[in-house]
């Protein structure tokens, strides 16, 4: 344990290492600052951005309020279009369903288009345990997979890597997974992209089963939508004979027309493009075109519980654009891995402790992984008030309270390790509720001010390790005021 405040949990520890890693910090700083500026320009071009943001928020809220109805409608439309719908309450069930479906095809490998839902449930590892190899085909995901690494950004999972590192990973690992990297590969973007293309092309042409997520599902038509930049996703969606899509239940929109809003806000918020290069939509199956079998696995995994929380449920509006990550000063320094989940940054800090509960050290620490500066709320295209939810979850951590877990209402006890802090907060409240006590404390501090150290022991040590504390003044303001009545009274009369 380093010298931090009481209840010292996992995020600060993980962040400690990232802050000290100069390469990582430089990579992150460069990437986030570049995209931040571009996003601002792309958003400024749209005259009705505020209206679009409000519309996105409302569509999502409306859908979430009637989620039961829209899910049933979606199931009907998907089935009518020739797809097969499966319901998964949690990660284990979802993994079991997908592994079973792959086995039914008799195949032992699948190609995947980047999907956060499958990462959330650890599908690749679950398939591996069943003897099925999953190949990631998104360029950044490929880098992460080959590097035996974990993703650290929603949109650019390998944001923490620079070109040199990527070249090295390709040269070392590609042969293990399929077509090796070309001899003499350099770190120019064109060569790296070419190496990845050749490596992946071989897999697309071989694969019989594809696994995807989806950005949106349209209830009225049963259509799924993936937006991407590289076109690799489109190959995954169209070339295999069997397609299995694993999607969180919150990704629904009621009608085709609702997409109009998000297809404007998502690309501008995420890649700062006016329109994303590839938008693929698929509805059930069609003879002679695309996969012959289509399965949709609808994933709950804590979403219904999250929906039960009045303040926290707004996190389910998220369209995973990653704008909040790119502006977040904490993400920029701590890196994505410190958040301990596939959802890093501000959205991860509010989503993970809701989906997983606040029982673990890392989940109890995530609501504090923010200075509450509000930059994330400002950029969020569906207006999720992330600071509000963070404070709400802090309350849950330190004070406990009613929550829904696995459909049942339970009352959480406060998390361990906050006893001293709670006592300090109570004591401060006590003193602040009594102006006399506050004043006595101030006077005592002023009188003994020469004795006060400029560095602190205990919980304050971490603060004073990198910053000097202010010197205490000889006289608090209220004493000056009383002595002088705001500079106009007789000095020295009042006591």
């Amino acid at each position: 344990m380093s010298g931090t405040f009481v209840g010292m949990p996992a995020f600060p520890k993980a962040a400690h290492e990232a802050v000290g890693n100069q390469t990582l910090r430089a990579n992150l700083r460069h990437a986030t600052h570049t995209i931040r500026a571009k996003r601002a320009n792309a958003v400024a071009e749209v005259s009705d951005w505020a209206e679009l943001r409000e519309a996105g928020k409302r569509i999502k809220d409306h859908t979430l309020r009637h989620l039961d109805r829209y899910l049933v409608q979606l199931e009907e439309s998907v089935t009518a279009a020739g797809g097969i719908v499966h319901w998964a309450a949690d990660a284990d069930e979802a993994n079991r369903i997908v592994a079973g479906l792959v086995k039914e095809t008799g195949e032992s490998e699948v190609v995947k288009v980047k999907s956060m839902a499958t990462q959330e449930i650890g599908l690749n590892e679950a398939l591996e345990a069943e003897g099925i190899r999953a190949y990631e085909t998104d360029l950044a995901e490929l880098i992460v997979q080959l590097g035996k690494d974990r993703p650290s950004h929603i949109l650019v999972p390998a944001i923490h890597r620079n070109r040199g590192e990527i070249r090295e990973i390709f040269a070392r690992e590609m042969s293990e997974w399929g077509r090796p990297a070309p001899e003499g590969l350099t770190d120019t973007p064109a060569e790296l992209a070419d190496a990845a293309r050749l490596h992946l092309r071989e897999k697309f042409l071989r694969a019989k089963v594809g696994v995807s997520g989806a950005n949106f599902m349209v209830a009225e038509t049963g259509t799924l939508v993936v937006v991407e930049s590289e076109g690799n996703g489109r190959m995954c969606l169209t070339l295999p004979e069997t397609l299995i899509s694993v999607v969180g239940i919150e990704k629904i929109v009621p009608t085709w027309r609702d997409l109009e809003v998000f297809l404007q806000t998502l690309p501008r918020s995420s890649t700062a493009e006016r329109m994303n290069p590839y938008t693929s939509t698929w509805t059930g199956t069609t003879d002679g075109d695309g996969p012959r079998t289509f399965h949709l696995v609808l994933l709950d995994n804590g979403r219904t519980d999250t929906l039960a929380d009045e303040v926290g449920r707004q996190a389910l509006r998220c369209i995973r654009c990653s704008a909040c990550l790119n502006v977040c000063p904490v993400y920029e320094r701590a890196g994505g891995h410190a958040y301990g989940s596939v959802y890093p940054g501000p959205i991860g800090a509010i989503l993970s402790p809701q989906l997983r509960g606040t029982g673990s050290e890392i989940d109890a620490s995530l609501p504090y992984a923010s200075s509450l500066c509000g930059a994330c709320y400002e950029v969020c295209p569906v207006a999720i008030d992330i600071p509000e939810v963070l404070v709400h979850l802090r309350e849950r951590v330190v004070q406990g309270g009613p929550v829904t877990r696995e459909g049942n209402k339970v009352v959480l006890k406060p998390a361990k390790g906050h006893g001293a802090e709670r006592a300090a907060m109570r004591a401060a409240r006590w003193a602040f509720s009594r102006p006399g006590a506050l004043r006595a404390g101030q006077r005592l501090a002023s009188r003994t001010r020469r004795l006060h150290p400029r560095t602190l022991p205990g919980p304050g040590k971490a603060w004073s390790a990198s910053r000097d504390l202010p010197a205490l003044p000889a006289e608090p303001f209220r004493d000056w005021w009383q002595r002088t009545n705001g500079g106009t009274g007789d000095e020295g009369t009042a006591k």
Partner: protein
Amino acid sequence: MRVALFLTCVNDTLYPETGRAVVKLLTRLGVEVDFPMAQTCCGQAHYNTGYRHEAEPLARHFSDVFGKYEAIVTPSGSCGAMVRELYPRMGERARAEGRGDTLAATLAPVVPKTYELTEFLVDVLGVTDVGAYYPHTVTYHPTCHGLRGLGLGERPRQLLRAVRGLELVELPGADECCGFGGTFALKNSDVSAAMGADKVRNAESTGAEVLCAADNSCLMHIGGTMTRLRTGMRPVHIAEILASTEEEPTA
């Protein structure tokens, strides 16, 4: 006009000179200032750390002390945002918890009457030139709660530009958080310190003598980092700059 000065617990205890500057400035502008002695703390640290129930009695106390005034002025963007943004939210939460409208009704009167200092000067008094003299190069850091919570916008810069002798230089990355964040500085001290150091380096690159802001908590964090990094720059609250005159310079 008679206003109540809400100095905040941090200013009262650690930065009394800011309070004296506000009194001097407002008095010079013909405003009668009262300092209700029963005031303590708005409850922000409690609220933001997750102790909403501990913050409620402090918010009620705030309303009791300040409710009768025509206007409440505070030289802190974050405490101002606490009253304006979060008091209504506390009322709503109490209602959602089945505790009725009592808290909301108690807090409601102070919400629209609470102004951050620069907001009060520009919006209520309608002045941008407060007759100040401050012959220094200054860069301005818009603190997060002032910037996004209260939407102070250009007001502080307008006031600074009208100060005679003052040269205002732009701060690169001005809108980025300095890393203070109340208990964040303690709970995530490494990240907080890294943010502080970047802010100070940006400030240093301007060549300004003074970094000014409308919140002493952020200035404490930035200033503490400045002395540690031996920059030679000074953190100064905007109230002290605006209070400074040729006859009576503050620094």
